């Protein structure tokens, strides 16, 4: 990897993930020096487990949602001395470490500001359930920003990005609508973006923690209202 791993910060938003967060953090720590786990008001031992596994821990006093947790993690990481490269990584164990590494390599070529993981590009075999796949692909094609940017997977939790993106990131959608907002911010700020094929591990655990498809209705509605609110 061309990027100095000591300048990389991995941001892991977590809500009641005590069962798996220890392994996820330990796995990340085997490659990266800096992991920050944002405990989103968990009622279990997520924060302590992550801390013991070697992560920095920032705890929301109340549950705010994944979007808010990512924003908190980015704000923490970007204020750390030497931080230059950032990655978001879901806490439920659905992402693969080697995908982050290849996305960081892609970012290190220097021609883009942000790399987003996609389940639906290249030759990777996607194990996404058919209905979920259909909805996600439709979302990517129907969203004005993701279509303009040519993105194929608008709701992937894996992203790697540079300091420019981290410094200007301001997610206001606290819940699951942040993924669409992230894409819209890329479009508005003219950040250079690329996609990298990744695999999502649909384990029983990650599926049980995943969001129901019906939540897509909320996501679409929030996207419509975005920008109507005072910042």
């Amino acid at each position: 990897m061309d990027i100095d791993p000591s300048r990389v910060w991995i941001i892991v938003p977590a809500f009641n993930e005590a069962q798996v967060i220890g392994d996820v953090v330990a796995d990340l720590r085997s490659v990266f020096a800096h992991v920050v786990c944002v405990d989103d008001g968990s009622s279990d031992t997520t924060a302590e487990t992550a801390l013991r596994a070697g992560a920095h821990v920032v705890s929301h006093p109340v549950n705010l949602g994944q979007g808010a947790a990512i924003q908190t993690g980015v704000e923490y990481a970007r204020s750390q001395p030497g931080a230059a490269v950032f990655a978001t990584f879901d806490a439920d164990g659905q992402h693969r470490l080697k995908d982050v590494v290849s996305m960081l390599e892609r970012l290190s070529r220097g021609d883009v500001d942000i790399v987003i993981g996609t389940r639906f590009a290249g030759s990777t075999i996607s194990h996404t359930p058919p209905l979920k796949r259909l909805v996600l692909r439709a979302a990517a094609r129907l969203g004005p920003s993701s279509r303009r940017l040519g993105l194929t997977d608008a709701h992937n939790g894996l992203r790697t990005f540079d300091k420019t993106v981290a410094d200007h990131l301001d997610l206001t959608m606290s819940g699951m609508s942040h993924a669409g907002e992230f894409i819209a911010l890329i479009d508005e700020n003219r950040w250079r973006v690329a996609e990298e094929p990744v695999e999502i591990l649909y384990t029983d655990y990650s599926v049980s923690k995943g969001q129901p498809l019906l939540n897509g209705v909320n996501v679409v509605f929030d996207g419509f209202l975005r920008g109507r609110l005072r910042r």
Partner: protein
Amino acid sequence: MNWIQVLLIAAVVALLMYLLRARSNAKAKAWVKIGFALFVIAAVYAILRPDDTTVVANWLGVNRGTDLLFYALVIAFIFTTLSTYLRFKELELRYARLARAVALAGARTPEG
């Protein structure tokens, strides 16, 4: 087309405009107060002379004053619902930022 239809459609369009450019500033707040003052005057008048609402309704192509008031109520209700929704969203964002500041102040590092 009846006048009431024109008015109702205009009201719906105005609501949409409000939704699209909802930003609480001093001007908007002043208009809300003026609107409320007009509402009070109209309410007092309608209470004193209830049959006049039917006269106004007939001008607008509605049979009964009651129906006219009902239409106005529906529009007012939608307006209130939307502005409350937007207000809540705005408060949620502030609340998130407050919670974030608390979280960042209490950050823990693995070194202890």
